[in-house]
């Protein structure tokens, strides 16, 4: 079957699929007319029940906390998978790294890029930490903060300090941090079970003021653990890919 034939068959079948999809979507009550009671019920009771003014994070870590445990472990397993698949590659090819750069002229990193990346690393780490620890008040939370912390790691690589990168990313430390993050989340849930409550129930004191930093019980704590787990998972992934390519750019820094 030649590629043009494949394309025409797909266009016919794809048009049929999209037509059925649109037919199904037309059964929805229209954009802006959200009817369902679940969202409205949660909006009405969330702030009073959990003292968290960020309702989305309260849903993620309290009302639907069990789903979040599952999603976090998808992340964990994907990072482990990347490390497994790429580590075998590294063991198989033991060629010396310097030869490969000799016949290609690799342009040196411009000093503007290095300076800007260096300047921005500190504020990005601060912003990521702030996001990961303020889940209950603002539009923030563990997932966003963790991803921003991983972005800071990419900035360290961009500022040209490859040796710094190797020192900041010993694989053992990242593995330990990721395990602490994932295990900490599960442990908080199990601590609730140990006290006779259902798994992942919010058992810490809720605080006086809704939306204060120390309010909302386990939500802030879980968000912090999720943040460091997500950061460690992405640092692991980017670090594995960097190890593959930086062996060639050894002459740059």
């Amino acid at each position, binding site marked *: 079957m030649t590629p043009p034939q494949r394309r025409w068959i797909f266009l016919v079948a794809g048009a049929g699929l999209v037509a059925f999809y649109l037919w199904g979507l037309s059964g929805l009550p229209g954009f802006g007319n959200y009817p369902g009671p679940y969202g409205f019920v949660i909006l009405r009771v969330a702030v009073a029940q959990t003292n968290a003014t960020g309702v*989305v994070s309260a849903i993620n870590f309290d009302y639907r906390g069990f789903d979040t445990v599952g999603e976090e472990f998808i992340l964990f397993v994907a990072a482990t998978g990347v490390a497994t698949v790429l580590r075998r590659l590294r063991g198989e090819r033991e060629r010396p790294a310097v030869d490969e750069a000799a016949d290609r002229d690799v342009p040196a990193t411009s000093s503007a890029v290095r300076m800007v990346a260096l300047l921005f690393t500190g504020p990005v780490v601060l912003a990521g930490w702030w996001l990961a620890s303020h889940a209950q008040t603002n539009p923030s939370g563990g997932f966003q903060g963790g991803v921003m912390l991983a972005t800071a790691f990419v900035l360290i690589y961009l500022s040209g300090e490859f040796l710094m990168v190797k020192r900041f990313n010993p694989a053992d430390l990242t593995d330990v941090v990721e395990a602490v993050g994932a295990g900490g989340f599960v442990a908080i849930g199990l601590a609730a079970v140990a006290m006779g409550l259902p798994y992942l129930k919010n058992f810490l004191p809720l605080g006086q003021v809704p939306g204060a930093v120390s309010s909302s019980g386990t939500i802030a704590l879980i968000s912090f653990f999720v943040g460091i787990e997500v950061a460690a998972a992405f640092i692991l992934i980017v670090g594995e890919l960097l190890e593959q390519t930086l062996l060639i750019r050894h002459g740059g820094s």
Partner: protein
Amino acid sequence: MNTLAVHTAYTVPVGMMAALQITLLVLVAVGATAVVLIRAPVRQVLMLSIYGVLLAVLFLAFQAPDVTLSELTIGAVLLPVVILLTLAKVRKPEQ
């Protein structure tokens, strides 16, 4: 519930919000088409980054700032970095 106009410091008239959302939806559709139609991988990664920013602004117009933060950091920074590193890895000929 769907005909109430809310008057806080952060809301705009409903008609203006609808116009903004329609514009952003059209831009997102055009961006998705552009991402698919660009065949060269490195240029496609750049278009993917722009598409991520467009999606993030669309989510902001849908009153979802949390999803905006996630999509911005992931779609505009992390995914392009990971894809570019992969492309650098497969560029040299394997012996």
